[in-house]
C-alpha cells in the first residue's frame, strides 16, 4: 500500500524516520512508522485524533523516546532518538495548537525570549530583543507593535507571533499543529501564504490539519496515519478530500443530501428582525417541526451570538422571537430551557460539558427535576435516566461515574446531546457539533440529528463547514457580517455554489 511517489525528484530528505515504534503501557501508539520530509517542502500529516500524529511529532522533537531499533536521520546525522535540546539546536521547531505563548508579555518578549535564555550576564537586553522580533516579523512581511502585550492581538496575529518565534531559532523544519483551527478564511489564506513563503525560503513545513481543503491546497505530499500505523505517502496532486477521508478512516462515506420539504409542518420558531448591534442585524427566520435549518458562514459572522440570543444568554436590542405561536422574552437561558430551547455549545471543553465531573452528572445537570423523588435527588432515578439515554444514543462508556473527559470527542458530544434531549426541548440548536469529533464519528452524530428531526424536533444546525450543513439540513442560510445573505435548498443548488458564496 505504501507508495513513495517520486515527486520532487531524488532530492535527499531533510528528515527521515524509520522503524519508529512507541508503546504506552501496553498500547502501541506507533507501529513501524516511517516518515520523511524533504528540504523546503510542505508536507501534510493526516489522520484522525489518536492515530499517532502528535506522538510522532513528539518523537521528532525529542519529547518521547521511541523503542529501540528506531533510526532518525536528520540533516546528515543519524540519531537513535532526539532530545529537545538537540532538536531545537538543529532547527526543528513546533508550533503547538495552543501556541504556548505568554499573553501578558510583549510581542517582542514572546518572539525573542528563547534567545536570551542561558546567556551571561543574566540581564535582559530589551533593545536586542525588539530588534530580533522586528526582524523575524519582517521576514514574514508583517508589521506588529512589538511593545504591545500579546493579549492585545487576536488569535490570528498570535499565530504569526508563534511562527516568528520559530523563525528566530533558525528553523529548518517547522511543525504546525492545527494552525488554522481558530482562524477565519481570510486569516487562513494569509497564513497559507506565509507557509508558502517559508517553503520558498527553504524551510520545510509539516502541516497537521483537520481541514482537508487546506491540506490539499498547501501541501506537496500527504502522509496518512491510521491507528498508529502508516497508511501511505501520497502526492497532493490529484488527491480529493473524500479520498483522504477514506484513507484516514478506512471507511467509505457516500454522502447524500438529506433535505426534504417540511412546508406543511407547523412553525416552531419564528424570528423577525432580530438585532444586536455589532453582532447581528435584522435576522428573520423560521424553523418548522421536524425541520433542520442549517446556518453557515465564517467565524465572526454572528452565528454563535444569534444562537446564544435564541437561548436567552444574550438579549436582543430589537426584533421578536416567537416560539410555537407565543412571543417569548428570555431574560436568561433558564427561561429559554423552560420554554423548550436547548443549545449545544460550540465549545464543548469549557462551556458544553463539565469535563472533570462524571458522565451521569453531566447528563442530568439540566434536568435535575426529573431525578427528584420525595424532595431529594435519587441515585436510582439518575442511574436509570442515564442508562436509558446511553442506550438510545449508542454511547460507549465504562462506568456512569467515570469523568466525562475520559470519553472520546464523539461520545462526549452524544452525552451533550442527551443532556439537552433530557430537557424535552422543542428546538435544539447545535453549534458546531462536530468540532473535535473524529471524521469517522461525525456521521454517527448526524444520524442522531436526522433521527431527532424525524421525531418532530426543530433543529438549527450551525457549522462553518459548508458540506456539513449542505448534506444534513433541509435548508441552508448563509450568514456574513451579522446578516443573512443567502438562503439555499440543497436539493436544487450544488454544494460548490454555496461554498463559492461562503468562502469567497
Amino acid at each position, binding site marked *: 500500500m505504501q507508495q513513495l511517489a517520486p515527486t520532487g525528484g531524488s532530492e535527499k530528505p531533510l528528515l527521515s524516520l524509520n522503524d519508529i515504534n512507541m508503546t504506552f503501557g501496553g498500547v502501541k501508539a506507533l507501529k513501524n512508522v516511517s516518515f520523511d520530509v524533504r528540504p523546503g517542502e510542505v508536507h501534510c500529516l493526516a489522520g484522525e485524533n489518536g492515530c499517532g500524529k502528535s506522538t510522532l511529532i513528539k518523537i521528532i522533537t525529542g519529547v518521547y523516546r521511541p523503542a529501540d531499533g528506531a533510526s532518525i536521520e536528520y540533516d546528515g546525522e543519524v540519531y537513535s532518538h532526539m532530545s529537545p535540546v538537540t532538536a531545537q539546536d538543529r532547527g526543528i521547531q513546533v508550533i503547538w495548537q495552543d501556541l504556548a505563548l505568554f499573553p501578558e508579555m510583549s510581542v517582542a518578549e514572546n518572539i525573542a525570549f528563547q534567545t536570551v535564555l542561558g546567556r551571561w550576564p543574566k540581564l535582559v537586553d530589551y533593545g536586542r530583543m525588539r530588534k530580533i522580533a522586528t526582524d523575524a516579523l519582517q521576514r514574514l512581511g508583517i508589521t506588529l507593535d512589538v511593545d504591545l502585550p500579546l493579549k492585545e492581538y487576536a488569535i490570528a496575529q498570535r499565530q504569526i507571533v508563534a511562527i516568528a518565534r520559530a523563525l528566530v531559532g533558525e528553523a529548518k523544519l517547522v511543525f504546525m499543529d492545527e494552525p488554522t483551527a481558530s482562524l477565519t478564511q481570510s486569516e487562513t489564506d494569509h497564513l497559507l501564504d506565509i507557509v508558502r513563503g517559508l517553503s520558498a525560503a527553504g524551510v520545510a513545513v509539516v502541516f497537521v490539519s483537520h481541514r482537508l481543503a487546506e491540506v490539499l491546497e498547501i501541501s506537496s505530499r500527504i502522509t496518512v496515519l491510521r491507528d498508529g500505523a502508516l497508511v501511505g505517502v501520497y502526492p497532493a496532486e490529484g488527491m480529493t478530500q473524500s479520498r483522504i477521508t477514506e484513507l484516514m478512516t478506512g471507511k467509505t462515506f457516500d454522502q447524500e443530501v438529506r433535505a426534504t420539504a417540511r412546508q406543511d409542518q407547523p412553525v416552531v420558531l419564528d424570528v423577525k428582525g432580530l438585532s444586536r448591534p455589532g453582532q447581528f442585524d435584522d435576522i428573520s427566520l423560521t424553523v418548522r417541526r421536524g425541520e433542520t435549518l442549517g446556518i453557515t458562514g465564517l467565524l465572526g459572522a454572528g452565528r454563535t451570538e444569534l444562537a446564544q440570543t435564541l437561548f436567552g444568554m444574550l438579549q436582543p436590542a430589537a426584533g421578536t422571537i416567537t416560539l410555537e405561536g407565543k412571543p417569548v422574552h428570555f431574560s436568561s*437561558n433558564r427561561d429559554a430551557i423552560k420554554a423548550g430551547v436547548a443549545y449545544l455549545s460550540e465549545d464543548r471543553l469549557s*462551556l458544553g460539558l*463539565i469535563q*472533570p465531573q462524571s458522565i451521569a452528572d453531566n447528563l442530568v445537570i*439540566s434536568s435535575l427535576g426529573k431525578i427528584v423523588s420525595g424532595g431529594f*435527588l435519587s441515585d436510582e432515578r439518575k442511574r436509570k435516566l442515564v442508562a436509558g439515554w446511553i442506550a438510545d444514543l449508542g454511547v460507549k462508556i465504562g462506568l456512569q461515574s467515570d469523568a466525562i473527559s475520559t470519553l472520546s470527542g464523539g461520545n462526549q458530544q452524544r452525552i451533550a446531546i442527551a443532556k439537552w434531549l433530557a430537557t424535552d426541548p422543542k428546538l435544539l440548536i447545535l453549534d458546531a457539533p462536530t468540532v473535535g469529533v473524529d471524521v469517522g464519528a461525525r456521521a454517527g452524530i448526524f444520524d442522531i440529528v436526522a433521527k431527532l428531526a424525524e421525531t418532530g424536533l426543530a433543529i438549527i444546525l450551525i457549522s462553518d463547514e459548508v458540506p456539513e450543513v449542505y448534506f444534513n439540513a433541509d435548508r441552508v442560510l448563509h450568514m456574513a457580517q451579522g446578516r443573512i445573505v443567502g438562503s439555499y435548498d440543497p436539493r436544487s443548488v450544488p454544494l460548490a455554489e454555496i461554498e463559492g458564496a461562503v468562502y469567497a
Partner: protein
Amino acid sequence: MTSFSDRLKAWLGPEMAGPGLALVAVILVFGLVSPQFLSAATFGSVAFQLPELGLLTLAMLLPILTGGLNLAVTFTANIAGLTLAWVLQANGGADAGAGAFALGCILAVMVGAASGVVMGLVIAFTRAHPILVSLSMMIFLRGLGEFLTRGGDVSGFPAFIGPLGHGSIAGVPVPLIVFIACVLAWHLLLTRTKLGFNTYMIGSNIEATRYSGINTRKVIVLVYTLSGAMCAIAGIIMLARFNSVRIGHGESYLLITVLACFLGGVNPFGGFGRVIPVFVALVVLQLLSSGLNLIGANQHLATAVWGLLLVGVMVLRFAASKFKISFVRKGT
C-alpha cells in the same frame, strides 16, 4: 450484584482512603505507645474538642467545594456568639430565660447568614476572588467586634446554657450531638439536593454550569449563606463551652479548617470532596493532639505534627495516584 463492601466504598467515596488510613495509623501508634490512649477519657476529651473545629470546618467546606474559600468563618462565629450574648444580657444576663436564649440563637444564625449573604452577593455579582472578599469580611467583622467589645470578654449567662457546652445525653456530649447532626445535614445537602449537586458542578466549571441552565449566582449566594449560618452554630457552641464570648476566640482554627478539608480529600480547586471523610479527618487531628498530650508532648509540638501529617498525606496521595496509573496501564 454489588457486595456490601463495594456499596460501602461507593458511599464513602475514594476520598476516604487518606483519612481512613491516618485514623488506623494514629490509633495503632498511640495505642501501642500509651496504654491510657484507648480509654474513655481520651475519647471523651476528643468528643468535647471536636465540635468547635468541626462546625467551623463544615462552614469552610461548602465554599471550598465551589472553588472558593471563606476566611471569615471564625470571626463570623464570634460575631454570632456576640449577638446571642447581647440578647441574653438585654434580657437579664444570668437570669435570662429560655425564650431569650431561643431568640438569641435565631438572631445569631441570622447574623451569621447575613455575613454569608453579603460575601455571596459580592462574589457572585462582581466575580471578585472569594479569598479577597472573605478576607475583607473577616477584617470587617474583627474590627467591628473589637470596637463593640473594646477587646474584652462578654460573659454572665444563665446556667442552663452550660450543658450545651459541657453536658451529655446518654453519655454522648451535647456539642458532639449538635456536630453530628450538622455533619448529617451537610451530607444530605451535598448528596441528595439540587443545591449540593450544583455546588460540585460550579466548583468544576462555573461557566459550563451556567450554560446548563443553573442559576449559578443563586447557588453561590446560598452556599455562603449556609456557610455563615454554620459559623453561627459554631459560635453558639463556643459561647456555651467557654461561658463567654471574645472576638478572636478560635482564630487559630481558621487555617486548620482548610487543612482538615484537604486531609479529608477535598479538592483544593473545588468540585470534589465529601463530608464523611472530612469528619474522619477531623477525628484524626483531634486524636493526634490528644495522644501527643497524653504522652506528655508539648502542645505546640502537636500543631507541628498536624502539619507533618498533612504533608505526609499529600505525598502519599501523589504516590498512590502514580501507582494506580501504572497499575491500570499494565492491565490494558
